[in-house]
């Protein structure tokens, strides 16, 4: 059975295609969304999900969140005794999801379709693929998130020639895709996006507001305090969600035994967010331009991603398109559902027999070239696209290049991905060198063929027609991580003890109570302490039934105190 996974910045989810429909799989807490958070408990075991998220402000140095933002980089995060790469932290999340799926389906699960932001570049995609392998999956396919959302949305939609735009603003990434459905074909016409724009950035605005407000009181010490920073982030998240419902909210943090409160209005947040909101425009424009569609030709605007719940984002969308967006799908489950549909497609499920999906490569792929500058000198490092962005894949394209210098004995092509005019600002994927006979400048022609397959694997062939000389480059992995390395790292991660699944609910409840203890002062803090004491004494009795009862009482009491907990 192939599973479909949404590995989000903030939350992750897993689903399967079963009995002719996409089904989401609940985690051990009974929820469909699992926070993308990893922590190390005091006993050295690994915590994933809600328990880890709740411990973030009480154990800032033992918790990691939002690591998807660094996917594909070598940024190390220290947790307990070990340093982790973003892909390793993601692997731990994936492993927890895998365990949930196995418990739910009652069989081992080894194959997965993982959703990635459409605008992830090659490095980020490869890192995601490795994360899947580190978690023990065979990654059958990476699917673009908005494409997945469209599948979830469009499969039910049997209209004739429907065109729509998916606007996906999640916790950390922003994607836009324009799609067309006709006669069982789901065709992505164009994708664009911003890899670093999402709910987290709006939180940062609120954190900055709080810091400015209390700068004088917190001083130097406040600036570097990790626990304070996490508490500010949590307060910002809570406050921002409140502002989705109400015109104003009070952000409160407790630090060193003192409470700090600051009231923010939705209007003030919107003013501060003007810069972020204006960054929504460019990808939308680009996706429309690339798909050669006018707004009027779109049948629907589909919103996906938790951050589209913010009224200011909805208003911005309405203004941009001159109409109201459709809100008919569940914004934070759509991607996992769509990934599950892709899993069904991949398995050639009979119910999906008539559906064919085609996607595009959202980035241009090309080589570096030189040209004669205005002064007659040669400028190098210019980007020349071979496969232009938003070409339907699999695709294969050829471009010819000529020598610039007389007597040149070889040509070296750097292979790049991106849209910048100068290759230095694009992502380098590899190098390929081919010998040529010495001739006057411009006399030797070299043909460069790019082949981009359905899994996003790029193959570059260069040929000198005059001599018949050929060279080939398969861009597997430019970070040089080979099979063996992945295997050892997988073994290392497997060594890490994971907190038992059946204790996860109690663990998460305790973590939340622990955080609440620190989030309040005075009477309410004493109250939380009493709740914790009661709960611990029930747990000590080792009676699962009364533990369940006590847990729900504890959670209800905490809900009363701070409002419902959120994912």
């Amino acid at each position, binding site marked *: 059975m192939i599973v479909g996974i949404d590995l989000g910045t903030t939350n992750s989810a897993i689903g399967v295609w079963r009995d002719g429909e996409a089904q989401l799989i609940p985690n051990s807490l009974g929820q469909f969304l699992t926070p993308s958070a990893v922590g190390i408990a005091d006993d050295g075991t690994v915590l994933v999900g809600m328990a880890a998220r709740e411990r973030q402000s009480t154990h800032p140095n033992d918790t990691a969140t939002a690591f998807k933002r660094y996917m594909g980089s070598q940024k190390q995060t220290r947790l307990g005794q070990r340093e982790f790469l973003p892909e390793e932290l993601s692997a731990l999340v994936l492993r927890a999801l895998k365990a949930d799926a196995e418990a739910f389906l009652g069989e081992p699960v080894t194959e997965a379709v993982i959703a990635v932001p459409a605008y992830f570049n090659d490095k980020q995609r490869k890192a995601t693929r490795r994360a899947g392998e580190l978690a023990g999956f065979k990654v059958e396919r990476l699917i673009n998130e908005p494409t997945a959302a469209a599948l979830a949305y469009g499969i039910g939609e049997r209209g004739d020639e429907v065109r729509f735009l998916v606007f996906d603003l999640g916790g950390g990434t922003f994607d836009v895709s324009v799609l067309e459905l006709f006669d069982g*074909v789901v065709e992505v016409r164009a994708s664009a996006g911003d890899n670093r724009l999402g709910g987290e950035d709006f939180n940062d605005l609120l954190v900055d507001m709080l810091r400015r407000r209390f700068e004088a009181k917190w001083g130097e010490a406040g600036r570097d305090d990790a626990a304070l920073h996490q508490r500010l982030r949590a307060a910002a998240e809570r406050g921002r969600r409140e502002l989705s419902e109400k015109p104003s909210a009070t952000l409160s943090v407790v630090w060193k035994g003192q409470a700090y409160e600051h009231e923010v209005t939705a209007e003030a947040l919107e003013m501060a967010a003007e810069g972020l909101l204006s960054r929504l425009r460019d990808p939308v*424009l680009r996706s*429309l331009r690339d798909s050669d569609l006018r707004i009027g030709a779109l049948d629907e605007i589909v919103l996906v991603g938790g951050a589209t719940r913010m009224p200011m984002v909805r208003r911005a969308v309405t203004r941009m398109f001159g109409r109201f967006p459709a809100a008919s799908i569940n914004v934070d489950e759509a991607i996992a559902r769509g990934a599950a549909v892709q899993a069904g497609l991949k398995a050639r499920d009979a119910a999906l027999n008539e559906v064919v999906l085609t996607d595009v490569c959202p980035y241009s792929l090309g080589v570096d070239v030189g040209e004669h500058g205005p002064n007659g000198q040669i400028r190098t490092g210019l980007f020349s696209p071979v496969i232009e962005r938003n070409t339907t894949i699999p695709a294969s394209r050829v471009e010819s290049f000529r020598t610039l210098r007389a007597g040149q004995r070889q040509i070296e092509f750097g292979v790049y991905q991106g849209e910048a*005019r100068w290759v230095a600002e694009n992502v380098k994927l590899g190098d390929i060198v081919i010998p040529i006979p010495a001739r006057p400048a411009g006399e030797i022609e070299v043909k460069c063929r790019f082949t981009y397959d359905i899994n996003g694997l790029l193959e570059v062939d260069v040929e000198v027609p005059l001599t018949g000389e050929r060279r080939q480059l398969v861009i597997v992995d430019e970070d040089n991580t080979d099979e063996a390395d992945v295997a050892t790292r997988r073994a290392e991660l497997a060594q890490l003890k994971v907190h038992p699944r059946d204790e996860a609910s109690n663990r998460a409840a305790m973590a939340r109570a622990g955080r609440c203890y620190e989030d309040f002062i005075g009477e309410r803090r004493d109250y939380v302490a009493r709740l914790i004491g009661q709960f611990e004494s029930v747990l000590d009795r080792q009676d699962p039934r009364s533990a369940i009862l006590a847990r729900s009482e504890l959670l209800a009491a905490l809900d009363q105190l701070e409002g419902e907990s959120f994912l």
Partner: protein
Amino acid sequence: MSGLSIWEVLGQPPTDDQRAIKRAYAQQLKRTHPEDDAAGFQLLRQAYERATSIAAHAAARAHAAEPAQESHPEPQAEVVEACAPEKDPHEAHWRICGRLEQLLAMEHVDPAAMTAALEAVLQTESMENLEIFADTEVGLARVLLHFAPRGDLLLPRAIEHFGWYDQEDRWDLSPEIRGVLSRERALAVMTRLSDRRHQHHVGYMTLCAGPLETMGFWRRLRLGRRHRPVAAFLNFAVGQAPGVLHMLDQDVVEAWDRRIARREKTRQARTTFWVFGAFLAVVLLMARW
């Protein structure tokens, strides 16, 4: 290539009907699935894209062949009546854009009015709409270039508003916007060149002074000897500010280019003469000894 025509690949007799092309493509797609047959899919895709663009051209041609409605106000009124009499919600925006264009087209330049007109364009409510925004962005770039230099004082504001500098490093930036950016850059360099302290000030001002032939005798004598600063300036401009060269009087630049080349030649001839003379002298002296 397989040697099949695009229509054979699509399994569809030639047609301009987009819907029929789509249907044929969808049908073939299920046979040449992109997952199983990459080469077959690419062939099909190519055929599909070609067929679609042929059909689009045919549609455009057919549209053009229809009586041009815009040049005949009367029949258009009828057409509007026939359809629902819907008012363009962005009409006001385009009117405001038109006002700016009128100001730019006028002989007399009124900076305050132009700045205000640009500001009015940027602030209309319609600019929140993506399509209006995109059309206005490119349209404005085109108009500013078209009416240059009259619109030059508006360039910085337009560049800032649309963030054109941020997009400058993209290979697909529209030529109009690229034109605006290079003009703005050239203007900035020219401002610096007008400063006496700039090392190429003299050369630049000499070129700005116009053709030597039209000058009075004394002035011509004074400016006519500035070969060296002009040559240095031209060298600098070609390498680092090609935009500036385009904005100078091309005849003047060419005339100076020729003067400099001529002088270079005479200088070379002179050097050759002296070297040769010295050589001859040495030879003669040696022969004497």
